[in-house]
């Protein structure tokens, strides 16, 4: 039915229960029902990448997944990338390389990059470029973002993480 249905979602290691309409996207559910407003919505039709979250280890557009489809999945949002109040190594690299200005696209870049590095821990610069080609940033011109991801990959390989 179009009526609300009760849904259990596993987000950033916490199990949440909420009521959603079938038409509610995962992005809206995260933001409005779970108050996880780090996930941003830009185009809402799968083009800009701002709403990217990690579902069962894979980068996914949360504007193109209905919350009801995410039942039983393990979801990681930008809020789940760092363990505590400190930044993750990738977030710190974005800071160090000036890889953000307004910050609107940043959560999508971070989740895209995190999923990418888990699949390809030692990427070439070209592979990084290709990996973020589905995310749009209007401020930085991408080069600092690529630098930050390449740097994170290098540091992780050196430290054996």
């Amino acid at each position, binding site marked *: 039915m179009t009526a609300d249905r009760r849904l259990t979602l596993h987000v950033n290691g916490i199990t949440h229960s909420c009521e959603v309409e*079938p038409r509610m*996207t995962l992005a809206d559910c995260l933001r409005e029902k779970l108050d996880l407003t780090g996930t941003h919505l830009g185009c809402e039709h*799968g083009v800009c*990448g701002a709403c990217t979250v990690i*579902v069962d280890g*894979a980068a996914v557009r949360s*504007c*193109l997944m*209905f919350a009801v489809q995410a039942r039983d999945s393990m979801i990681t949002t930008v809020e789940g990338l760092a363990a505590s109040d400190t930044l993750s190594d990738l977030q710190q690299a974005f800071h160090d390389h000036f890889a953000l200005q307004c910050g609107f696209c940043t959560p999508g870049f971070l989740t895209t990059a995190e999923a990418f590095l888990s699949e390809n821990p030692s990427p070439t610069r070209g592979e990084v470029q290709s990996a973020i080609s*589905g995310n749009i940033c209007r401020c930085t011109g991408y080069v600092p973002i690529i630098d930050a991801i390449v740097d994170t990959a290098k540091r992780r390989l050196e430290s054996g993480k």
Partner: protein
Amino acid sequence: MKAAAFEYRRADTLAETLLPELNDKPVAGNQSLGPMMNLRLARPRRLIDIATIPELRKIVESPDHVRFGAATTHAEIEDGETPDPTNGWMRAAAGNIAHRAVRNRGTMGGSLAHADPAADWVIVLTGLEATVIVAGPVGERRIPMEDFINGPYTTDLGDSELLVAIEVPRPGSSARWGYKKFMRQVGEFAKASATVLIDPENDRHRCALGALGGPPVILADPLAIIEGSVSAADIVSAALSGRQLQSFSMHVAALESALASALGQQEDCA
């Protein structure tokens, strides 16, 4: 930019999906239907989620072909989690569809049923002489790719039918392939595309053009194109005569590039 209200049901078996009510819509990855719904170009009354139906996830290998369940994702093909009957050609094509986040959810069957004229599988599976398998209340139908797509976003699927599988023939060991698409930037839909299949052991030769605003066009006399006895420009001009196409020269270049790639004269670049 939010979808209109709809009902939602997750289907566990194929049988549940085959007696749809009016304006029911099957959904798997939601990467084509989703944007249409968010833009309210599509307003299904009910979504039947078919993404996890075992029959649609099944892959069956035979000596002469591989049958892919329609809910196989682009990423599964890209990552080599499925067999590739074409020894890497499908894998390379899958890895160039849109962006990784789209490939993680989007499915081969969904892409074909959506039938965007510029979509990769639409031209690639036509070029590979694939067959679409459709299930309906009275059983299965087999439709060659070239008969499956009737127009832009229009297929041969009946209201009560579901695209359940795609059968891709195995080329011979000496077979060659070229696929070229032009895009404004990585991940965008193609402005022009072409494929060339050279499979002498099975006597299969096919040259096709895609991203034409409708179904792909299979070019006449592929052997003449492959042997170089006719020019790509002449053949494309004959095949597309009467069409108002700004991309004419891109289609010629796509065909030349796919041909060069199939003949081993250049690296396959897209």
